[in-house]
């Protein structure tokens, strides 16, 4: 049987890779993709703990589903924002979006 630890480490790896992407990528849409990665890593965690915890209690799965919903919503709004910004400012580079500078 696969130990729980493995899943968690996989999830961690995936999370950190996503984190790196979020912090380092210039393209806003790429950042969005990395966010999806991080989100996915969380679902792995949730499902793994369900599987190794009380199986009758479906909270883990339910939360995973809700995370999907949140991810979908986030993607929708985020991408709409990206397109809107692109339309107005002709860029999707996150570094250029610094209107709130000091």
């Amino acid at each position, binding site marked *: 049987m696969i130990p729980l630890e493995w899943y968690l480490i996989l999830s961690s790896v995936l999370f950190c890779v996503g*984190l790196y992407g979020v*912090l380092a990528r210039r393209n806003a849409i790429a950042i969005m993709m990395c966010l999806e990665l991080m989100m996915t890593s969380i679902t792995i965690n949730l499902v793994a703990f369900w599987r190794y915890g009380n199986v009758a209690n479906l909270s883990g799965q339910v939360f995973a589903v809700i995370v999907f919903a949140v991810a979908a919503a986030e993607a929708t709004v985020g991408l709409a924002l990206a397109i809107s910004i692109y339309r107005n400012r002709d860029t999707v580079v*996150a570094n250029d*979006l*610094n*209107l*709130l*500078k*000091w």
Partner: protein
Amino acid sequence: MNTTLLIWLIPVPPLISFLLIVLFANRTKALSHSIALTSVIMSWIMSWIVVFSAFAKGYYYGENPFHSYIHWLPTGTTYLDMGVAVDNLNSILLFFVPLCIVAIFLYSIGYSNFGKPVHDHDLPGTPPHHGVDPLYSRFFAFLSLFAGAMLTLTVADNLLLLFVGWEVMGLCSYLLIGFWYGREYDDPKATPPRIAAIKAFLTTRVADVMMLLGIAYLYSQAGTLNFHDIFFNEELMYDLTHNPSMIAGFTVANLIGLLLFIGTVGKSAQFPLHVWLPDAMEGPTPVSAMIHAAAMVSAGIYMIIRMFPIISAGGSHGPNPTMEIITFIGAFTALFGATIAIAQYDVKRVLAYSTISQLGFMVAALGMGAYVAATFHLMTHAFFKALLFMGSGSIIHGVEHGMHDVHEHIDPQDMRNMGGLKSRMPITYWTFLIGGLALSGFPFVTAGFWSKDEILGDAWAHHHYIVFTVLCIAAFLTAYYTMRQISLTFYGEPRTKSAEHAHENNWTMTLPLVVLSFFAIFAGFIGVHGEFPVLGQLFGNNPFEHWLVGALPKDMQPKPFTFTWFPVIMSIAVALGGLLVGYLVYGRNPLKSADQVDPVKKLLGPLWTMLENKYYVDEFYYAAFVKPAHWIGETLTFKIIDRGIIDGIIHFVASFFWKAGVGSAAVEQVAVDAPPDRMADGVRWTGDAMKYIQTGRIQNYLMYTVIAIALIGVLFGFLVAG
């Protein structure tokens, strides 16, 4: 129309004329003088209707005069009433004042060169030399106001309304004396009209404020200012006569009388407030006639005649201090004015001093209780002095035209520049001669003789021998300087080209002269003393006196003095003597040239210089009153008291608080402000330094967050695990 309403209406037309000219007619010269002339003629007609209906009422009509009033000012539960009344006294003024005014108005039309076009060289505010006066309309407006004020004063039934007319006349005299306000003289000692105007107004104002006090005093004592209500109230008159005032030796009535008399001193140019009158000659000549004959100076005399019951109160029980003062000032002024007049060269100035002197006669007469004689002289003087002034104006006008013809620059008013005008200006000559003889008191045929004789006779009859002597000398001098004036002006040969080219003026100027000449002769016959041989009976036993005393309550009416020959002989002697001496000195040997020294000057020497300089009264006043007033105003009250002392104290207090404020601010800076200030500095510095992390980039923020989480995690790990 009933008579009382007519009295209200008498002063109204000139006042309306003033408003009409000022507001609407000021661009049309013909319309202006038409309005003005019409208005005074209306007043004249209404006055005479009133006067003759008063005559019809009989001698003692004064107890129940034409009278009408309105509530003018509420005073608590009572009212100060304003009204008009015509009684025996002011009916006489209403007889001659409007007549003289109409004459003056008519005369002004010619005098202001009406009919000629406006000339470019005639600037507004200077005497016109070429064409009609540029301010022609304004002149008639002011004259109208003047006439309206004089008539208001005449018909007033109370002292306050009289004062209103009195002061408005003061304003008009100011405006009219200063009418040629733009005139300048090369001679620095000469008084330009604008200064003369101020001098006139202020000198009379000195007197007017005193008179105001007198009015206030009378009002507070009597509770009314109505002449009739005061004089015919025996109880009140008794109180006024017997209660002592705050000044020892004066009863209330005496003090009121004295204060009111000061008003007359100013208005009628008595010594020591006479100084304004000669300078008032700077005004146009019709104005001089108006001020010095018909209106203003008469008003002064009229006022003390009107207030005679107050002034003479207590006089029957021994000497009354007020009357003594009045007599002294009158007699002194009569002599004083006459002496100055003999040394003047300006044709109008001679008349001005003559006016002062003649007014002195009236004042002295009133001071001696010669109520009738004073009034009588007031009337005759108005006629012949108006005549003389307008005659002198006619002379000046003629000479000015001569000047204009020959392009000569001389003083057209200086008698030394005249001579020989008799043949060139015959009407002016004959009328001026009549006026001059009347002024001198030429026996029997001139009005001036009868009125002056009345005064001298009264003085003699009541044993005022000193006054009698003084007045006789003054009368002698009067005749002398009159003859001097006539001789210098009309006789001999012309001493300048201008005089040579002078010619008679048009009818608007000569007609008034002729009319007034008539009155200067015949007005005297109504006042001939009843006991005068032949003539007294012939002229109706002195109707003037019988009429006039009706203005007074019965117990105050003066008795006619007993006729004696001495004063009559004296007055004939001084009149003829003066005329003769004058003729001998100036008429028989006329001056040959304008530069010739006056023959009397050698005789009198320094005294002449003193007379020529009017006893240096002006200089004395300037040094004693005007300069100190400047100093007080500019230095004492303003610089020393206000700016120095009061503001000094304020600034001291202010600077004290200022310094206290500066000090406490310094303390605050160190003790109170510094710590929070430094803290605030620190916060700002930190903020300045830290603001750079606020890049506006979401990834940077996220990075910080994650780093922070990492650090917290590490820390947490150490704490929990360690």
